[in-house]
């Protein structure tokens, strides 16, 4: 689905989630877990790893991933109660993107109802977004954008841009339409002198 060079996609995979190692890791203790004392990482140690690494290692059954903090039960309950007011931006900027990725992750606890939960959250926040983006005071808008996750923000900005463009058009007065292509106004220079089109010299008969 996502493109290889999609920056949002890369950033979403950069978010960390807690994992527990099934195997010990030799020589990478410091690199994976800065708080680790020894050189090697023992079996069963808890480490926060970015999604892309956790995904790779869990496929090789080297670790067991757990749900990140923002998808734990407490926040889920909050979101089910009052979805519109919860500050998703603070929890995780790529809430949905990462959530969808987690759905595809193997042997993750509590991933069964994850996709349904994400969809529910999005739907209930979507309706609020719809009205706020089109008819709302500026102050409320600014406060509102602070709680949106990245995906929602993009939708919001799009909606606002088109409604602003419409308002601009309907209150504009002129009938003329300015062209999108700007004419190239650079003057030609010819041997240091400005080149001008002149009227053709009159040839006397």
């Amino acid at each position: 689905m996502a493109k290889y060079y999609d920056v949002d996609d890369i950033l979403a995979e950069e978010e960390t989630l807690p994992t527990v190692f099934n195997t010990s890791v030799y020589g990478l203790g410091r690199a994976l877990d800065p708080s680790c004392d020894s050189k090697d990482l023992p079996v069963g140690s808890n480490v926060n790893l970015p999604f892309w690494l956790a995904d790779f290692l869990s496929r090789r059954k080297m670790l067991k991933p757990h749900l990140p903090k923002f998808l734990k039960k407490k926040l889920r309950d909050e979101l089910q109660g009052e979805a519109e007011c919860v500050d998703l931006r603070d929890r995780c900027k790529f809430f949905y993107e990462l959530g969808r990725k987690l759905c595809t992750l193997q042997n993750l606890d509590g991933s069964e109802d994850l996709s349904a939960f994400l969809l529910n959250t999005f739907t209930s926040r979507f309706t609020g977004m719809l009205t706020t983006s089109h008819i709302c005071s500026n102050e409320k808008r600014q406060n509102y954008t602070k709680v949106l996750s990245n995906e929602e923000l993009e939708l919001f900005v799009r909606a606002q841009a088109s409604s602003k463009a419409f308002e601009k058009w309907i209150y504009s007065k002129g009938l003329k339409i300015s062209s999108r292509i700007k004419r190239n106004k650079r003057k030609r220079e010819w041997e240091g002198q400005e080149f001008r089109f002149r009227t053709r010299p009159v040839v006397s008969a």
Partner: protein
Amino acid sequence: MREGGVASSLTNEELQYCAENETITIIPNFSTASLHLVNGEYGPFRAQNEATVPFWLASLLRKRNLCRVKPPEWMKSEALIAVLAEEKRSPNEWQELPHHYIEVAKLMFTAAEEDFAEFDMDVHEIRRLIDDIRLVRFDKIEKQFKQVTSAMTIRLTNFCAMELNLMRNFLLSSLDEYYKFSTAEESGDVQQQRQTQEMDEDESQDFQVRQLR
């Protein structure tokens, strides 16, 4: 903002340009043979007799004070009041209006505002009515969108060009988002199936091993 995710749409000004091709009735105060232009033949014009021309020609003539523009039939206040009442009555249906009604109304108000009075029409009332209709219709569109809960089809019968243009960006990208959810769900299901399959295989291998023993 990401590019390419959504089909490029026309700007409002370009829509207005398209709307200028709509035909409209004028009453010229000059007489001339028909005009042969690149995209068609208009006329012949006879003074005080009605003629049908595209709006761009009408506004050109109006600017030179060569004609009066007759507001179209649907712009009469009785018709508009009826449409408004009908719009308010049925919450899930949109009334049939000209495809470019917002644009044509705006063009009429800017190019030929004085001409309304000559045909016994109150320009302020009509302006207010059209604004009301636009708002009521838009409100209904938003209500319709609130029912969207998945990547599904939405009925857009009788939507007008400007309304579509206004909602296009938002609607398409939100449907995109919903589509991503549905694909994630599917792939999640596939994953789970694969897991159960693997477990089954493990068990059957165990069984075989036990049998061998």
